[in-house]
């Protein structure tokens, strides 16, 4: 089996984001960027499946500006075999991302596409499902456990009510939850080795995909701040405040 993994470069999850003064977006200049966290789980799972002898090749793909290539390098350093960087100048909506990924799937013919369940910047939670609709493939979203079978996967999904288990025939799409596995760190020798692994560069314009934005971002603003609270001295005071001041118990 061949596995394609989509990885996205986002503002690091530890960064306290700042909103641009003109309300046009958030500040990304000189801000620490890293791989979208569940995408690390997606790569880890693909590499583990390969190590177990059940996959032949792991290909990491990213769609983004010049620097997005770092995200592919990182995937190569933890075990992906080669990379693809689809270059775009501006950020794309999930629909456009999934149309580009559809072209890459046509070209690479993977049996599985692994992705993160949501990107932590825009929290859209769409791309995997859109891609599987475009390909008419089965989808297993929010995966917290994957068992690889002959021509199918048994996947445990995290849903609001608890857990759900489904079986999907390959080719298929899986979107990964953070609980799927524990992503490994890249070792120094592997980081060095990854520098020699090939990354194919493709210009999005050459793929003939309509990536024009459909959604206008009119403004980005600070959410309303909570008014400052108080510290109570002890439990008795806490209960008294909840009862008589906030009137919630």
């Amino acid at each position, binding site marked *: 089996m061949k596995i394609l993994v989509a990885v996205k470069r986002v*503002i690091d999850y530890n960064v306290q984001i700042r909103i641009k003064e003109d309300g046009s977006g958030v500040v990304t200049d000189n801000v620490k960027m890293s791989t979208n966290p569940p995408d690390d789980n997606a790569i880890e799972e693909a590499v583990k499946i390969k190590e177990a002898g059940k996959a032949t090749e792991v290909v990491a793909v990213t769609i983004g500006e010049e620097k997005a290539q770092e995200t592919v390098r990182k995937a190569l350093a933890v075990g992906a075999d080669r990379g693809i960087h689809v270059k775009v100048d501006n950020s794309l909506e999930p629909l456009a991302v999934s149309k580009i990924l559809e072209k890459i799937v046509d070209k690479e013919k993977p049996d599985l596409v692994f992705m993160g369940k949501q990107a932590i*910047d825009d929290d859209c939670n769409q791309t995997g499902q859109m891609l599987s609709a475009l390909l008419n493939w089965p989808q297993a979203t929010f995966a917290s456990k994957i068992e690889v079978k002959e021509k199918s996967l048994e996947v445990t999904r*995290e*849903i*609001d009510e608890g857990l759900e288990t489904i079986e999907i025939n390959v080719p298929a799409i899986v979107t990964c939850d953070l609980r799927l596995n524990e992503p490994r760190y890249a070792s120094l020798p592997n980081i060095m080795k990854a520098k020699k692994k090939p990354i194919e560069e493709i210009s999005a314009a050459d793929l003939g995909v309509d990536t024009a934005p459909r959604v206008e971002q009119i403004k980005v603003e600070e959410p309303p701040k909570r008014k400052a609270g108080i510290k109570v001295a002890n439990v008795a005071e806490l209960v008294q405040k*909840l009862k008589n001041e906030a009137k919630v118990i």
Partner: protein
Amino acid sequence: MAVLLIAEHNNKDLKAFTLNAATAASQMDEDVHAIIIGHNSGDASKKLSELPVIKKVISIDAPHYENFTAENFAPVITKVAENYSHIVCSANTFGKNLMPRIAAHLDSSQVSDIIKVISNDTFLRPIYAGNAFATVKTNDSKKCITIRPTSFDPCESSGGSAPIENAEAGEEFTNTKFIKREEVKSDRPELGTARIVVSGGRGMQSGDNFKLITEVADKLGAAIGASRAAVDAGYISNDHQVGQTGKVVVPDLYIAIGISGAIQHLAGMKESKIIVAINKDGEAPIFSVADYGLEADLFEAIPQFMEELNKLNTIQK
């Protein structure tokens, strides 16, 4: 054109958030129709027809719809959507799984997890774990929108009598097979809709100690929440997780015990009306959003809290 609401249900009852989604839909256009797809779901269809905001119910019933598989749902909804300008459902795991599939079939750029309807094409949505609010306007002719249920009040649940129209089922998608669902059953209120939520974090130290949280929750008639760290450590099951990658809750009272207040956790609870934090680290970020902070060791504070609650004559339920 009218708005098409996708009802979420369990073949018998409507899921509570369908009522919140109906409210949001009615703010986009007064003419709201609802589609309900399932198997032997007549009871749920009837309840849907009783929501006064719904003008018409479209019901599709077939065995392969029993388990709500998105691959089966998306093509039939896409077909029905021809006659509608907006397709709406909740941004919970049901809607998150389903809506993008419909949007891709309709070649529409979905707007996820909106918290406010500004006009019928402009919406407010949180980004970056709720650290920024984006106002977005969609130019697609079919607008696929998921709504954050806790940001909209539930609609009236009775008094309406919309006509129920049966529509034809689509083909079965055979490459996805449902195997099982493990639902955690409890008599406690549901986390998403509870008036009070008591949450525990890594500070609880073990699954056994989580019983302390359970006791407080039972006393207050509250739902139980948890941080991701507590779920990851196996103290409690995943359906209790609150946060950016878990559930969003907006109760009247949220009590965070042994939770540090990482931004990903705050994303799921900081809109709560009253927030209480109990933490032994006075510098913990959770105190920055707490209306009432108690700097204390939770293993001393919880038993005292129970004692004080027991002294009260009445507790609101």
